[in-house]
């Protein structure tokens, strides 16, 4: 035992996180044994976080091109065309592990990191979103602390840097108890001509580091993020990265000012594995080499070893590849903003990655080899729980007698209740573009000076993916697109965040693979290519096991005219309420089963992607034609919850009658896909129904919006729901306060 341990410790590559075969491979690439600096370079670049060792082979499934796609995966962020020679760029990124340990700083630096990705594209960051997953706090203070610190961290960073946080989601399940998920997304805007690339062209050009000083922050974060939380120890953590949004704001201003001039050939933000990964990636893209002298890097701490400087994850730094001779001009602009811009190395022609210390070479490896992380295709085995959950029958649960009470409980349930507690801590109006603020289906931003806007959403459903990874993932893409469409936006493209457990476990690999296939199929059907993404694996703890498989979809859409902007709230009494889509007797995987019956089981509702596309095109069309007064998709909690949400937001009641031969709970709370709830005036309603019939879509007038503040639902002459909007509103508005045990 002790002997074996001693042997383990001898193998320094294992300590660095490399396997025996990876070590063998790298010595082959190098033609010799690496020194400690070189070993550190490989350990970082070949981690899942930088090298996508487990996920890369699966990316082949993705559709990545399309008429609006200007830049697919491969740059810091993807880019889509929004007409008029204008583009938006967006991406999401996870910061799960740092947030589990230091939630405020972890979440804050997650926001800062993704903003720099967008900045590196040459764009001005115009919006942030976040997707958060926590355990149920129950009576327990730690989770509550975690939630409030994460939200505080996101808010403080975004508010200070002046990028509005306009949307997102917060979801709860004990699958995230030990390992919360914190994914942040950022969207940037620019003219087509302003696009920058992460490329180190031009032999002799300078590598300049700008922004913060370099310290021992987040040492080894890239390889840390690629390990189980269970394996982590104090040493692994290094120093927690601390974000400085003030510095980030200056960095944005200074970089964009520099970009206006013709000084810079390439830009890369410094994220995981800091100077190392940013410079390797830019060099590799150009087929060039680089050399960097660590002594030139402005530092905050003394006696840093070369590999520490190379892999430090100090925040708010960027790498610029500057044209030879323009260095002083760049420095002058940074100086104006009280920042430095320092030459730390050069582009070379020999294809080598060379690290110097005071002019002396301390490490040298081929650039291509660092980018050539080995990939793994692992065994996939269907998770055993699916046998039981797929066999679920609706008859297994009894229908509660008081359906009003069920509705109220669902409206106040953590996943469904209003997230105002969260987003009122976020400045969602700064920059003056927010046309539809948080609280609706999609956030809508106008593009200044034009009659157009963009829709932005972030969605996930871990429970769906746990119960059916492939269809669950499809449903999330479909729901994202529904959220866009009901807001008046035409879905353009997605970025995906793949949050999973340890892929070396065959059941987890199965979830990963199936989810990716599901996303791919839905994206093809809905014509929303994947233009970027992020993977966070090894999300598990010994105590609570793996998280639910949680792909998160960030989507953008184009609002062709601001006249098309649509929101969910009922607008006028006496408007007709119209239900689009077919309601089936489906209880599986629902929020209702989870909240009311404490049951995570059943199959995810059926989803026909062809029909989905047709229904979405139709809904967008009637919105653009100006026929619709309000539109909302049916999601968590089904028809009754959607109806209540439109009533609450509009401060109006509704009286609807259905004629469906099925269990009342399935009718009210089942989550059949591809459904929409609209309202319209009388004359438009006729046209809406007509146009649906022409498309072969189900559409029915189910009732009216009422001035009386009651929600009444009948089915086949039986009254199922009769409740005041006020009661619903209270449950909806106070759900989060109750969860956090705060008074609003």
């Amino acid at each position, binding site marked *: 035992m002790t002997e074996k341990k001693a042997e383990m410790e001898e193998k320094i590559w294992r300590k660095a996180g490399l396997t025996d075969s990876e070590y063998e491979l790298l010595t082959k690439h190098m033609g010799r044994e690496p020194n400690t600096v070189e070993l550190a370079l490989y350990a970082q670049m070949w981690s899942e976080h930088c090298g996508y060792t487990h996920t890369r082979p699966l990316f082949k499934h993705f559709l990545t091109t399309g008429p609006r796609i200007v830049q697919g995966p491969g740059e810091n962020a993807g880019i889509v065309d929004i007409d008029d020679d204008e583009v938006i760029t967006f991406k999401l990124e996870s910061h799960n592990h740092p947030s589990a340990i230091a939630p405020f700083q972890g979440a804050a630096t997650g926001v800062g990191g993704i903003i720099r990705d967008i900045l590196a594209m040459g764009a001005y960051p115009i919006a942030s979103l976040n997707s958060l997953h926590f355990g149920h706090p129950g009576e327990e203070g730690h989770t509550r602390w975690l939630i409030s610190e994460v939200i505080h961290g996101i808010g403080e960073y975004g508010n200070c840097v002046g990028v509005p946080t306009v949307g997102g989601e917060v979801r709860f399940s004990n699958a995230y108890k030990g390992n919360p998920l914190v994914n942040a997304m950022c969207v940037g805007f620019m003219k087509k001509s302003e696009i920058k690339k992460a490329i180190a062209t031009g032999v002799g050009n300078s590598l300049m580091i700008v922004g913060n000083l370099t310290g021992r922050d987040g040492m080894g974060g890239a390889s840390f993020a690629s390990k189980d939380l269970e394996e982590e120890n104090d040493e692994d953590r290094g120093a927690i*990265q*601390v974000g*400085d949004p*003030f510095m980030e704001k200056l960095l944005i201003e200074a970089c964009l000012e520099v970009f206006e001039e013709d000084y810079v050939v390439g830009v890369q933000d410094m994220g995981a594995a800091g100077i190392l990964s940013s410079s390797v990636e830019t060099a590799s893209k150009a087929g060039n080499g680089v050399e960097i002298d660590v002594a030139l890097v402005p530092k905050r701490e003394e006696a840093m070893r070369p590999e520490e400087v190379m892999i430090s994850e100090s925040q708010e730094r960027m790498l610029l590849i500057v044209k030879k001779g323009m260095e002083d001009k760049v420095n002058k602009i940074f100086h104006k903003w009280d920042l430095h811009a320092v030459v730390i190395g050069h582009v070379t022609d020999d294809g080598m990655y060379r690290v110097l210390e005071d002019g002396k070479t301390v490490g040298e490896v081929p650039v291509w080899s660092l980018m050539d992380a080995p990939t793994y295709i692992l065994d996939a085995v269907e998770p055993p729980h699916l046998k039981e959950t797929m066999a679920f029958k609706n008859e297994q649960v009894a229908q509660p007698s008081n359906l009003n009470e069920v509705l109220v409980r669902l409206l106040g349930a953590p996943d469904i209740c209003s997230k105002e507690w969260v987003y009122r801590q976020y400045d969602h109006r700064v920059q003056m573009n927010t046309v539809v603020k948080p609280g609706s289906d999609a956030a809508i931003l106008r593009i200044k000076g034009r009659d157009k806007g963009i829709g932005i959403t972030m969605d996930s459903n871990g429970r769906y993916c746990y119960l059916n990874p492939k269809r669950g993932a499809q449903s999330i893409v479909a729901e994202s697109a529904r959220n866009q469409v009901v807001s008046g936006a035409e879905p353009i493209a997605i970025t995906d965040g793949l949050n999973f457990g340890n892929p070396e476990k065959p059941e987890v690999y199965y979830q990963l693979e199936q989810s990716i296939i599901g996303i791919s199929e839905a994206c093809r059907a809905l014509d929303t290519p994947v233009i970027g993404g992020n993977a966070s694996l090894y999300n598990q703890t010994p105590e609570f096991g793996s998280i639910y498989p949680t792909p998160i979809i960030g989507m953008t859409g184009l609002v062709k005219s601001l006249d098309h902007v649509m929101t969910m709230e009922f607008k006028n009494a006496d408007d007709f309420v119209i239900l689009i889509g077919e309601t089936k007797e489906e209880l599986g995987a629902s929020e209702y089963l989870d909240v009311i019956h404490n049951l995570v089981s059943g199959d995810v509702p059926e989803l026909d992607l062809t029909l989905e596309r047709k229904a979405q095109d139709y809904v967008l069309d009637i919105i653009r034609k100006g026929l619709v007064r309000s539109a909302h998709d049916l999601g968590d909690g089904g028809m009754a919850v959607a109806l209540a949400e439109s009533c609450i937001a509009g401060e109006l009641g509704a009286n609807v009658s259905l004629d469906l031969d099925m269990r009342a709970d399935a009718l009210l709370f089942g989550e059949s896909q591809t459904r929409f709830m609209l309202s319209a005036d009388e004359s438009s309603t006729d046209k809406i129904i007509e146009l649906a019939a022409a498309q072969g879509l189900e559409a029915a007038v189910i009732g009216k919006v009422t001035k009386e503040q009651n929600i009444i639902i009948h089915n086949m002459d039986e009254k199922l729901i009769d409740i005041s909007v006020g009661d619903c509103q209270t449950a909806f508005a106070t759900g989060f306060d109750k969860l956090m045990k705060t008074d609003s």
Partner: protein
Amino acid sequence: MLKAIVTVMLKKGIFDPQGRAVQNGLDSIGFDQVKKVRVGKQLEMDLEMTDMATAEASVHDMCDKMLANPVVESYSFEIKEA
């Protein structure tokens, strides 16, 4: 009655952006003799306790449980008669 004075500071090695901003701010108005600034919190607490030793143990406990996050912060305190 006892009074506890607790100081919570960012751990050494952890970047303190606030300290840096204050130092730069002081520098810009002429206080260039200030070479480094670190900013932390000070908490003054009135304790309904009489025994020093118990109070000390309690305050330790409070710091560990709530007042400081050991991942990023270190703390120290002093207890005196109010």
